[in-house]
């Protein structure tokens, strides 16, 4: 049996480990764009912030590929899949044959449509190489602009503030983290960041970058020019799906998979940021491009590829972010646009510095936002994932003393 895995992020790495756990002999080839040893992608924001050194990023031993008898094929991307010929085509034209294929190609930063992108000191925030380049550009930099008010944008802005830069965040939407949290939590997060010097401008887009060699200013769609010497683009990610034959493998925003992580094509699986599967909170297909999701999905895909049928009930958005004195935890569908049919229970708010919001549908928890005192968040995650009817009134679950014992 020959397994081929496209992608050496955490989904691909977890899948390879799962295959090896069940099958000591099967051949495994991993195709990866990045040549750095398997590392923790979310930790790159800690590198920018300066709380962790770049050398701490690897989360597998140096001999990972060798130890697990994996043939690494690194430094280039897959450019096509020849489904009839059972092979993957690489950038240099060579091919790799497979019996079972996992697409764990991940996602790329969502590009911005602006002029002057070739200038120096304009960075995306996705890979260890990006974080190394960002850190190298810090000496001498004083004014930064961050594009995007999602999680990546916020982590970038937080890191730059911690490094002592003046940071302006430009957001196209109405308030920061609008995909993750409700307006109350969004305001609390923005207030905290503003208290530490962040300038946030909403409803603004960038049209271009100017400067000679290095970026010197950002041009906005309302005709202004904001001086800066460093830019980080954090406008989310898009699944890497260019190389996937659309007619032969079902692709929506991501590669569509069933509960066994199988795509619509025989013997081809997908997992991680590239995969689109049922979201437990939303009840429909969704791409949850999140590290812990990728790790779990990769492992399940690996088991299925190795012949042990394991179902993955669905994915769940979840995130935790620590900015200055604020801990923010979001779970599931925390901010449904139309709230009819939902029960929403909130407690606390900006004045108490603690905020809790639960989103309930048909007596089942489907989303939550916690600001500060987030230690019990995992209990709520389990309630959402297990889709169990609530036995405790939600008003008690938003109290500060809520604990596991109250559910027993």
């Amino acid at each position, binding site marked *: 049996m020959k397994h081929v895995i496209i992608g050496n992020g955490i989904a691909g790495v977890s899948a390879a480990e799962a295959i090896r756990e069940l099958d000591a002999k099967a051949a495994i080839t991993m195709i990866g764009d990045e040549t750095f040893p398997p590392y923790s992608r979310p*930790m790159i924001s800690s590198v920018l912030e300066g709380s962790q050194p770049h050398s701490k990023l690897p989360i597998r031993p140096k001999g990972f590929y060798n130890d697990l008898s994996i043939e690494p094929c690194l430094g280039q991307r897959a450019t096509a899949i020849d489904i009839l010929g059972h092979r993957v085509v690489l950038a240099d034209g060579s091919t790799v044959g497979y019996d079972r294929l996992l697409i764990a190609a991940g996602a790329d930063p969502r590009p911005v449509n602006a002029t002057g992108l070739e200038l120096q000191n304009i960075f995306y925030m996705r890979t260890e190489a990006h974080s190394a380049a960002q850190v190298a550009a810090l000496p001498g930099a004083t004014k930064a602009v961050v594009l995007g008010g999602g999680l990546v944008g916020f982590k970038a802005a937080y890191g730059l503030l911690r490094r002592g830069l003046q940071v302006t965040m430009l957001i196209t939407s109405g308030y920061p983290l609008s995909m993750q949290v409700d307006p109350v939590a969004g305001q609390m997060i923005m207030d905290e960041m503003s208290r530490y010097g962040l300038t946030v401008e909403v409803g603004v887009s960038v049209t271009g970058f100017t400067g000679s060699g290095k970026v010197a200013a950002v041009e906005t769609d309302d005709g202004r020019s904001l001086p800066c010497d460093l830019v980080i683009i954090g406008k989310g990610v898009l699944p890497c799906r260019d190389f996937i034959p659309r007619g032969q493998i079902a692709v929506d925003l991501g590669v569509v998979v069933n509960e066994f992580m199988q795509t619509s094509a025989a013997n081809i699986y997908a997992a991680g940021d590239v995969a689109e599967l049922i979201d437990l909170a939303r009840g429909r297909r969704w791409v949850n491009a999140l590290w*812990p999701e990728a790790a779990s999905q990769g492992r399940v895909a690996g088991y299925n590829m190795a012949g042990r049928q394991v179902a993955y009930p669905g994915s769940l958005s979840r*995130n935790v972010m620590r900015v200055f004195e604020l801990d923010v935890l979001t779970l599931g569908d925390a901010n449904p646009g139309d709230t009819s049919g939902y029960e929403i229970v909130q407690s606390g708010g900006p004045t108490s510095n603690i905020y809790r919001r639960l989103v309930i549908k048909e007596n089942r928890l489907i989303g939550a936002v916690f600001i500060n005192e*987030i230690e019990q*968040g995992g209990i709520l995650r389990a309630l959402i994932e297990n889709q169990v009817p609530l036995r*405790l009134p939600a008003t008690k679950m938003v109290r500060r003393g809520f604990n596991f014992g109250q559910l*027993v």
Partner: protein
Amino acid sequence: MNQVVVHPERCVGCMQCMLACATAHSQSGTLFGATLEQPLPKSRIHVGAGRFNEGFPNRCRHCDPAPCQAACLAGAINRVANTGTVMINPDRCINCASCAMACPYGVIRFHEDPLGPPNRQIAVKCDNCSSRVVRGLIPACVEVCKTGTLTWETVDDAMRRKNREVSRAMSSGGPGQPAVPDGVALLKTIKQAELEIGER
């Protein structure tokens, strides 16, 4: 293999386990010394109030597989092979709280730990008193528990004993034996009644 087994129905909420745990994870190892330490040692077992204000001792279950281990971004959580204890490496932990999001029991806390790196907050949870057990001691919370809520035994033994207790309590042949000591049962009844009267 012995492990800490929790029998929550016996807990009276005295919190002596919390004091003992904090002391066991202090630099001095004594209660009075611990109160003077900086940072102040904190308990890794958490007695919370249940639905009827009864005590509920909550500690790490050392799950297998452990969701916190799978979710750890920094690769800081591992399982000790011979004891099954799930451990957090304080020097690899980046205090990101991803484990808090993963733990279905809510038993991980974030603070500076007397035994961890100085001036840095990290994730802290029960370590099964590994450093006491290698010295031939039993975990501090069990040693100090007065009501039999926390025991140090094999799970099989605990199950067998529990089964016997319940069988005897249900026995129709005689007066039966209460599964929970009379005093504990009385205390819980009073707490529950108090709460119900208050909510009326």
